[in-house]
């Protein structure tokens, strides 16, 4: 490590920068079209295989997309294990949508509960059915989405039109040859118990014949509702690798649920102080480790990440690890605390790294090093002088999400003016792209010196780079704080990103 100086910019281990191309857009806005508040996308999530994508919006809807370029169903067991090669870039098509949450009113607390979907998480697929969890501020729902063949039923015993007189349930879907009742429509007595059956049965009775059609329809059914467990707004849900439990986190508490049990949850973290005036820190995001079922990370508004070991005790008030970077006191300002708040954390697929996003930066942590992040990426450093304005118009409280690529080589996060940034995070990588959520993502790409003055201690592998020169303004683009790209997700196995610009879902590949 000692030998590595600035020349590790040419480190052969670092993969070349990716060239991002536009793949697809769903719900593109035509010029001058006004965006309906309810249509704004508020959650994006790929499933584990990357064959499905779900988005949630402020109107409480969940929209599912399915990948179309995968080889027609290979061995399912292979799919379960998530390894199969694909030659082309992923393409998706609209699959179905359903209304997940409705606006509600909590009469006890006189609170309106918005229908906005805060998070979506996919659960283990079983058979051909998809399962996912969606949550708004208060209520988590477990959905099963299943393809059903459209069926026609024929060969009934009774003509429904005649039986209708005493059987309100006559099915309207019956078709084909119908049996006729001699004195149809007459009243009849329900069978008495001593009704005797001949040993051979009644030959005149017949079972309905079901003809399966070619068409299928997707049916979404809410299987379970996990409600009334959160006093504050739910900011995260996360599945455990054991396949049977998940957590939900609000500002002050984290609860543990069993997927099968909706009337009981266990509180595992409670940071609520006895006196609310002593409150200094809230939970902003929480996620389970991808493979260790007992490890859980949560981030706080003070910029720290805590790693919990659920084995230690039932109520995890004591963290097993604390990740925090101590800012030099000289650089402190009024905004220091506000912008330190972490809006999102994500585990890398390997489970060794945690990516965190605060207002100005993206930080990559190694869980073996809690003193500082292994890499810090400036997302929009040019905004630092404008923090005052951002505070005035509340933009400083925007919660940007972040994501890692499936191979763990790159990270991405959003910014304003519908921009998002992709950084290479392998030691030595200089990749730092600025992309725009539009049909021409590279439009904003400015070849600027990606690497700024590196910290003096080249012994540490801490790198600080990607600080954009403020010259981007010179392109003639003014910053637009109303068009912010908060939500994005990286495909689990390929270099493909889905991101939300207001009501539009843009997909890119490299």
């Amino acid at each position, binding site marked *: 490590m000692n030998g590595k100086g600035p020349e590790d910019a040419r480190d052969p281990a670092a993969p070349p920068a990716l060239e991002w191309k536009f793949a697809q857009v769903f719900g593109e806005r035509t010029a001058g079209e006004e965006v309906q508040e309810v249509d704004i996308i508020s959650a994006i999530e790929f499933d584990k295989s990357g064959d499905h994508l779900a988005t949630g919006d402020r109107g409480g809807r969940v929209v599912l997309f399915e990948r179309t370029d995968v080889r027609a169903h290979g061995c399912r067991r292979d799919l379960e294990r998530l390894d199969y090669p694909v030659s082309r870039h992923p393409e998706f098509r609209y699959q179905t949508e359903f209304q997940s949450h409705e606006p509600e009113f909590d009469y006890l607390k006189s609170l309106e509960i918005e229908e906005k979907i805060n998070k979506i998480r996919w659960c283990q697929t079983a058979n051909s059915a998809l399962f996912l969890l969606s949550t708004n501020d208060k209520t988590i729902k477990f959905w099963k989405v299943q393809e059903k063949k459209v069926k026609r039923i024929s060969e009934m015993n009774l003509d429904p039109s005649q039986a209708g007189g005493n059987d309100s349930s006559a*099915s309207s879907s019956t078709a084909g040859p119908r049996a006729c009742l001699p004195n149809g429509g007459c009243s*009849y007595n329900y069978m008495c118990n001593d*009704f005797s059956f001949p040993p051979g*049965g009644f030959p005149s009775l017949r079972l309905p014949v079901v003809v399966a059609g070619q068409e299928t329809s997707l049916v979404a059914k809410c299987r379970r509702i996990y409600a009334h467990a959160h006093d504050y707004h739910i900011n995260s849900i996360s599945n455990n690798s054991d396949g049977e439990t998940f957590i939900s986190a609000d500002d002050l508490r984290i609860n543990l649920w069993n997927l099968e049990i909706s009337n009981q949850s266990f509180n595992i973290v409670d940071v609520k102080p006895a006196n609310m005036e002593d409150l200094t820190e809230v939970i902003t995001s929480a996620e389970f480790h991808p493979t260790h079922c007992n490890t859980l990370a949560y981030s706080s508004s003070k910029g720290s990440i805590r790693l919990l070991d659920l084995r230690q*005790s*039932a109520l995890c008030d004591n963290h097993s690890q604390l990740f925090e970077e101590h800012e030099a006191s000289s650089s402190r300002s009024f905004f220091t605390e506000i912008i330190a708040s972490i809006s999102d954390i994500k585990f890398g697929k390997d489970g060794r790294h945690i990516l965190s996003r605060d207002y100005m930066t993206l930080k990559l942590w190694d869980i073996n090093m809690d003193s500082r992040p292994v890499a810090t990426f400036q997302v929009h450093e040019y905004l630092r002088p404008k923090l005052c304005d951002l505070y005035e118009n509340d933009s400083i409280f925007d919660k940007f999400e972040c994501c890692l690529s499936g191979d763990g080589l790159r990270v991405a996060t959003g910014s304003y003016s519908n921009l998002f940034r992709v950084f290479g995070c392998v030691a030595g990588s200089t990749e730092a792209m600025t992309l725009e959520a539009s049909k021409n993502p590279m439009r904003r790409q400015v070849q600027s010196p990606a690497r700024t003055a590196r910290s003096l201690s080249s012994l540490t592998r801490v790198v600080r780079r990607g600080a954009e020169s403020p010259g981007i303004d010179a392109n003639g683009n003014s910053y637009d704080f109303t068009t912010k790209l908060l939500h994005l997700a990286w495909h689990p196995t390929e270099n493909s990103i889905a991101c939300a610009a207001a009501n539009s879902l843009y997909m890119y590949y490299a």
Partner: protein
Amino acid sequence: MAMIDEPLYPIAILIDELKNEDIQLRLNSIRRLSTIARALGEERTRKELIPFLSENNDDDDEVLLAMAEELGVFIPYVGGVEYAHVLLPPLETLCTVEETCVRDKAVESLCRIGVQMKENYLVDWFVPLVKRLAAGEWFTARVSSCGLFHIAYPSAPDQLKAELRSIYSQLCQDDMPMVRRAAASNLGKFAATVEQSYLKAEIMSIFDDLTQDDQDSVRLLAVESCAALGKLLEPLDCVAHILPVIVNFSQDKSWRVRYMVANQLYELCEAVGPEPTRVDLVPAYVRLLRDNEAEVRIAAAGKVTKFCRILGPQLPIQHILPCVKELSSDSSQHVRSALASVIMGMAPVLGKDATIDQLLPIFLSLLKDEFPDVRLNIISKLDQVNQVIGIDLLSQSLLPAIVELAEDRHWRVRLAIIEYIPLLASQLGVGFFDDKLGTLCMQWLEDKVFSIRDAAANNLKRLAEEFGPEWAMQHIIPQVLDKISNPHYLYRMTILQAISLLAPVLGVDITCQKLLPVVIASSKDRVPNIKFNVAKVLQSLVPILDQSVVENTIRPCLIELSEDPDVDVRYFANQALQASDQVMMSS
């Protein structure tokens, strides 16, 4: 065109509704599948109905669940045990659905059918089914297969047995934790059918793998099979194979695993024999009683009596009692509460001397606990201690606690204690009761919470039953009747309620002389609610009183009420009048 005779009409509808759009009607049809089967006859049931059900398995989960349940008892309708195997295909598909409860029910039904099947049919039909499920593409099928091995295994020939064992061991190493969990939780059942020789070799190595699984949830279930396996093995083998594992588990990093150990440990004591129990299990148990995690201590404390019962008097006094003493002042109220609910059972185990010396102080400190749950748990088990330490000692220490609980801030606590009063009264006797508890019982009649007043009225009835009408005349009636002049109508209503409950117990004379006049007087109350309650009470008194009393006293009063300006009063008065008419007519 089929002609349906009229008597068949209902069945025809039932059959058609198997495919109705309304799920409620489909459910209804599925629940009456046996009727449909009888109407079709055995042969057509086998050839048409069962295949029909196999094909139509994409219904809603509720319908599938009902179908899985019905098929479990369907053998008589397909022609008896000879044909039982035709039921397997539909259940096999139900074993693969996504919903856990449907799969569980299908597995249960398959087991139910499997135990009735003849050996050669099992080999021909059941074993292949288990193998197919175990090799299923989706984890759902593999999960279901785990619960079927214990049925398939015993009748299989040797070679097939070896294959089944190796399949099971693969399931225990499945990629999906759900499958490993199912394998772990069914291991005990499967092991019970496996021959001794393979038990030690193969099953124990499967078990060892499970105990080292990296998923807590799998290890937890492995703990559960410890006890089951322990019972199957010879004591010596058990000591060699299971004991080290459980001792290890009792120090597992995960509190959930230790929690399971605390729950299960006592079951192993018998399997390993007295000496290893003393050397290994008692120290392990003591550690669990002193665990850092309150949840583990709760589980351990809850088993303290069961554990001691197995050990006999000596070991507990030496090793367990000191821990129990610590637990009685544990920082977690839930631990104390768990201890309080079982500690009484230790008295008979330890004998009188040890109980008075050691247990009584613990017991008294729990009785004075600041949390009502703890005190309640003690009081609810009083009968067990009464026999050991005697009433005098008990009443001295008990009374303050009861009085305090009776006035507790939380109405649920008060409610709980009221429900124990009749039991206490019977144990403590009339004398004690009169002195100390009588006033409390009266006090509750004027509680602020309806449920308490309601329970208090009921309590008076049960006391009257316990001590007889004579006693009630002296100690209850005067005080109760006094309270009818309470200025608040809700309390007057409670008294009416008490009267209607007491009347049947006290008999005709007392009712006529003491209770009825009060009720009649209340019919002049200014509050309509009281008046219509009078009507209701009178209605309830009619059957137990003499006809002359009804005629001369009750009916005039009801007739007056039936002309009341208030509509509700008129309604209930008329109801009571009608009821009394019927009683008169029938007598």
